[in-house]
């Protein structure tokens, strides 16, 4: 294969040769980049399921290059060039010669830019500062220091040890004391703090840097990097470090640095200093001699970073949402709203979690017998540390009468009960209550689900989706439904009181996710108009049961699209 690769690259104009490197024969390619002759060594062996690596020979002769890491290959130092994220490419493993050629082109292109454009090279070095920093960390210490830090300001915080014998989870990490008290009362972090399960390990000092230099290339350079960095601190910062934090002595310091890399991106990284006897924080080379330095991985564990990294939206943190009905659909909505960053959720459901619920609900079996809303509140607060979910066992109308609905940014109703939902809408109309409402429900046998967003300042309301499409009167069933009314949909295993509509967890989850998406878009201000949305599933099971479907089902081609809700025959909307 090596010969075939050599022949192919040669045919493409590359100067190739084969050399023995250690016990193996390797292909070497000479290329001219930015007026310099560079030798690249094919370091990967076929088959190629990732882009093959070309190692840069004599890496130190080119200065510090971005995206190049020095590594020992067969007892010689080479530069390992990172040309892509491994998962972002689909490799044509059936055509290895083309793969090698493409990889070589990418290596040449990247190195060419690093060598020809020093400013770009410097910016790239800063951009990948944290990646380089991680390479300095001991492989045995990959569990990052968790830091609940919001703002880059000079400050001293406590560092807590992991909970004893904890092998996994957040409790297994060193933790810089949270600077806020916004954690849920029952999150792991908060509980471990208040229970006293974590011992204080020492103190952390957060030092914002105004100017960042590239990360050291090896652990041996760490001390010099530290001294250089401390010496470039502004006088005000150095003075404060000496006069405020320098008065205190310890055998260990966690220094948490933060700086802007490029394009206003901020990075955080940590260094641990340890000493055999208690000393003040060393700020000069002479003071540093008795200290050992260790680069540490760090993971910001603040709301901003964690929510955004998970795809959530910070602007939702202050929104207030009520989810009424936390059955199989409502629980999905509550979960996805929490995951999106909504902290204040009012969970409302009079039902108790039952064995019957297990296979289409997110709650664990340990909650059987508990109020659904309470159980879901605990589950949400346990998963989402900043959740402020609350619960009540009211039904829809009691909740409506007992609370000021206008305090909510959105009311989500997922009870699957058209009578109660219309009653609630009429209550809002009668009481002139101005609040956005999202109603959602699914239909049995996996045929689909629906959601209606009723924004009182725009055309269209829940009753529009109940207008009889034949007569224009107020109907009793939604005109969005896919199943014709007045058919036997309820199944019964154990007689009265045990009847249920047949649908699976996938259907309820799909409906919940669809409704949650709509709710999130509304809360973000991206969907300000009343609208309706449906998803359409297979008709197979319904037809097998002899269930008749609506014209809308057979003609519906707009799954998950937001459609106008207003119906000109809606009496409630024509008042406006």
């Amino acid at each position, binding site marked *: 294969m090596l010969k075939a690769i050599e022949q192919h690259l040669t045919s493409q104009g590359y100067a190739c040769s084969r050399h023995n490197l250690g016990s193996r024969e390797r292909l070497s390619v000479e290329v001219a980049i930015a007026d310099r002759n560079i030798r690249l060594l094919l370091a990967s062996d076929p088959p190629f399921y990732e882009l093959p690596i070309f190692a840069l020979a004599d890496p130190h002769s080119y200065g510090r290059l971005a995206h190049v890491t020095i590594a020992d290959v067969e007892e010689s130092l080479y530069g390992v060039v990172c040309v892509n994220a491994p998962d972002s490419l689909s490799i044509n493993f059936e055509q290895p010669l083309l793969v090698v050629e493409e990889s070589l082109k990418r290596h040449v292109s990247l190195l060419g830019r690093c060598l020809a454009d020093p400013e770009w090279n410097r910016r790239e070095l800063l951009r990948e500062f944290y990646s380089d920093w991680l390479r300095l960390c001991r492989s045995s210490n990959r569990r990052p220091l968790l830091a609940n830090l919001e703002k880059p300001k000079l400050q001293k915080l406590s560092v807590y040890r992991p909970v004893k014998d904890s092998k996994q989870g957040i409790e297994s990490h060193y933790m810089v004391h949270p600077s806020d008290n916004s954690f849920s009362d029952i999150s792991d972090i908060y509980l471990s703090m208040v229970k006293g399960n974590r011992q204080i390990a020492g103190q952390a000092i957060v030092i914002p840097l105004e100017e960042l230099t590239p990360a050291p290339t090896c652990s041996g350079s760490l001390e010099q990097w530290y001294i250089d960095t401390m010496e470039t601190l502004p006088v005000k910062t150095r003075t404060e470090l000496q006069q405020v934090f320098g008065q205190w002595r310890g055998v260990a310091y966690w220094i948490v640095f933060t700086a802007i890399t490029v394009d206003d991106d901020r990075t955080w990284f940590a260094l641990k200093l340890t000493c055999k006897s208690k000393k003040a924080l060393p700020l000069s080379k002479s003071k540093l001699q008795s200290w050992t330095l260790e680069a540490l991985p760090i993971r910001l564990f603040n709301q901003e970073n964690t929510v955004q990294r998970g795809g959530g939206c910070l602007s939702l943190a202050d929104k207030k949402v009520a989810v009424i*009905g936390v*059955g*199989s*659909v*409502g629980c999905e909505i509550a979960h996805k709203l929490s995951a999106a960053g909504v902290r204040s959720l009012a969970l409302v459901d009079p039902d108790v979690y039952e064995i019957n619920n297990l296979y289409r609900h997110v709650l664990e079996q340990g909650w059987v017998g508990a109020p659904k809303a309470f159980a879901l509140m605990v589950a949400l607060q346990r998963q989402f540390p900043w959740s402020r979910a609350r619960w009540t066992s009211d039904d829809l109308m009691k909740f409506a009468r007992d609370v000021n609905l206008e305090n909510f940014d959105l009311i989500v109703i*997922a*009870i*699957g*009960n*058209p009578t109660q939902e219309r009653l609630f809408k009429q209550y809002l109309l009668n009481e002139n209550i101005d609040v956005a409402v999202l109603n*959602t*429900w*699914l*239909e*049995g046998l996996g*045929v689909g689900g629906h959601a209606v967003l009723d924004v009182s300042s725009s055309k269209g309301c829940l009753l529009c989706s109940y207008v*009889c*499409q*034949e*007569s*224009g*009167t*107020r*109907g*009793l*069933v*939604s*005109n*969005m*439904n*896919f*199943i*014709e*009314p*007045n*058919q*036997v*949909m309820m199944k019964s295993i154990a007689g009265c009181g045990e009847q249920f*509509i047949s*649908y699976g967890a996938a259907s*309820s989850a799909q*409906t919940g996710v669809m409704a949650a998406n709509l709710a999130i878009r509304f809360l973000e201000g991206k969907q300000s108009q009343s609208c309706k949305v449906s998803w359409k599933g297979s008709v197979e099971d319904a037809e097998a049961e002899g269930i*008749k*479907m*609506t*014209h*809308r*089902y*057979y*003609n*519906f*081609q707009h799954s998950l699209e937001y*459609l106008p809700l207003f*119906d*000109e*025959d809606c*009496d409630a909307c*024509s*008042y406006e």
Partner: protein
Amino acid sequence: MSLQNRFSKFHDRIKLGREDDAYRDARVKDNSILDELKTEFRLAGYPIVDSFLQGSMKTDTGVKHPIDDFDIDRAVVIDEENAPDDPVVVKKLVLKVLEKRGFKNAKVKKPCVTADYINLNLHIDIVVYRRRGEQYELAVGKLNSNEENRQWSPSDPKRLIEHIKDSSQYVGSADLKLKQFKRLVRYIKRWRDEKFGQYVGKKVFSIGLTLMCKDKFRPSIDDEGKVNDLQALRDTISAILSANYFQYAGDGKYKVNVFLPVEPYRNVFENSSVDTGTQLYNKLRRMLAKLDTVLEEDSLKKQCEVLQELFGDDFEVPETERLNENQKVAFSTAGVVGTSQGA
């Protein structure tokens, strides 16, 4: 308020069902006449084994006539083994009952016995069938018919009703589409009653209109399920005119032919004149043109004005345009409806 809502209100005004208050007197008379027929037939040795409604009361396509009487279309059935060979014998029994009850103009027509009630706007048609298994035969013949014209004629009244009420060919919301078809029949029948003189109007048989409408029915429900009777009526009329119901007779005249889809498969308009066919053809064409005008018109008020020209005063014209006319909430007429909704 939408135009469909206007159609719905118009339909509510013109529809006539057996259980309607307006039909109460007719229903009472029908029931009591049926009781007397049963007695008369039993005493004569031809016990009635079945009876059923025919016509628009059975197919839910009845309309209130602006001027004329209410109709009763009643069928009585006797067993073949008890039936007399001469069908006019049993028709005479019907005539006897009707005359005894004081009906005026009671007479034996070829397919039925017909009469008008003296004190009520009530017209009654009674037909007699003999039944052998699933096979029905209609008693045909007048009092003075010779033997050749007196016969038990194969007929399939129940399958005809089934054909008209069948919704199996509609995919999705089949019941809704069948109801739209029935409304269209009522609209067309009301249009007939408005647009034809009384003499010709009686010759534009309801069953003929119903069968044309059934076979060429073009439902109109948009993808969101919104029903549109105007579009359905327009498309159905267009399809009727494009079909082969109207046979050109030269000189701008037409003969209309509509065949029963069941035994005896006869032409409903077999004995109709060219004048009837021509008038029907031309008036349908004019209706189509008017409906196209309505479809192109934006103003609800103007739309309703044109439709009132077609259907008469029962199709109301709003005083203002579409906004704010329906301050009064219109509720569903159903007390409870089963739904498929859950969460």
